[in-house]
């Protein structure tokens, strides 16, 4: 067999595997529990605000509810000591150097 033919067969086989994985993703997504009304009901009725991704620190268990400077909660300037802390990015500072207006009563 010519080498170019073997290469095209290899690429076609890869494309076939990718197509099969895409079909797998479509069927798996449609059957996934995230679409079940029961899990939505749990989130709504228990008034949950965060996913259980890490439970090693308060601010990684509930990143949306944490103090604004919770990554340095022990004392200012203390280094981050939970590994998952490196996954949580720093806050958005894009508002810096913009004018802030304060309206009194």
């Amino acid at each position, binding site marked *: 067999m*010519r*080498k*170019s033919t*073997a*290469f095209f067969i*290899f*690429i076609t086989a*890869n*494309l076939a*595997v*990718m197509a099969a*994985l*895409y079909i*797998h*993703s479509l069927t*798996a*997504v449609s059957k*996934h*529990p*995230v*679409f*079940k009304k*029961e*899990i*939505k*009901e*749990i*989130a*709504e*009725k*228990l*008034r*949950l*605000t*965060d*996913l*259980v*991704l*890490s*439970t*090693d*620190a*308060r601010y*990684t*268990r*509930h*990143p*949306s*509810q944490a*103090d*604004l*400077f919770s990554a340095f909660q022990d004392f200012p300037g203390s280094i981050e000591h*939970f*590994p*998952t*802390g*490196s*996954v*949580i*990015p720093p806050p958005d500072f894009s508002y810096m150097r913009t004018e802030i207006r304060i309206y009194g009563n």
Partner: protein
Amino acid sequence: MAINKHKNILDYTLQSLLRRKFKNTGIILVFTFIIFAVSSIILLSYSLKKEAGMLLKYSPEIIVQKILAGRHELISTKIKNEIMGIPGVSKVEPRYWGYYYDSGVRANYTIIGIGVSGIENNRLIKGRMPSANEKNAAAIGREIADARIIKKDIGDSLNLQNSEGRWMEFKIVGIFESDSEILTADLIIISESAFKSLVGMPEDTATDLAVRVANETEIPTAARKIKELFPYSRPILRDEVIRTYDAVFGWRSGLILAMFAGALAAFIILAWDKATGLSAEEKQEIGILKAIGWETSDILEMKFWEGLVISLTSFMCGLILAYLHIFLLDGFLFAPALKGWSVIYPHFNLAPFIDFYQIAILMAITVLPYIASTIIPSWKASITDPDTVMRG
């Protein structure tokens, strides 16, 4: 005829690549690994981001926390009526929740105290939820059931130490099924009164308040009014909650940035090494091909095929392996980064959402530059006189 010419050049290219099989196999392996690492992050983070967005859109529109000296503090439930008076607010419910460190298994649990749960007939709960005034009943997350030294099941008991040091015994009446783990893995649900006596929470206080606003457009106004009425409060909007997860799993996230930066640096070194010059052997090959009558365009086509064979093979293999890693093998290589020191963590059963836009970008920033970095130095060599090139 024309196609046959291209096939002949491809045949020659593959033969040429096989002559340097150790070098080229090495490049394909490194390239595949880089694509695998970056695609895994893209698939994992996009899937988690989609799941977070789909589930958390059912969380309360506004959470009102009390802030004291920069820290979260218990909030008075007496302000409920004043918040109810704000136009647009349809419901204000206190949330009773906190953490419990179990020194036996060195795990943190999230404990929630509830009134009437409203999820009595939920198929994702084996058993039932504790009723409003039940003192000694608990529903627990699947991972807590597995994390205690002896596996727990319905009918077993769970002992927790209260704020006065006394042990409280809870009968397990329900266990969340594994399909809900992403939300419930570490939860212990007990009644509101049991929660208050467990943690010693004073009367008329709650952890925070959940505010329901019927009309989506009125949420920011309601939050602003809450802040005006109670300057010590911190209203957290549902959009902010979802944005937090967008940030965690977005392009600029710590997870992607940390891993992507390393992979990108490795790829740049690889491409730079290729782009800065050809080896003496490769130059000689180009010179000989020119001398036996190959056109410059033929040599460029050969180099194009060379770049395409290596980069496309690596891209496809890397992408397929990444899919298998994240969605069929539960992301076992990356999961430890998220788990950190957690004792309790969910077993990821991610929904395989695929973002074709991100995959296309990944292809554009890896395959195309690699082909370019293969062609450009060869173009320089192929326009030089063959005799000069062969002599080096």
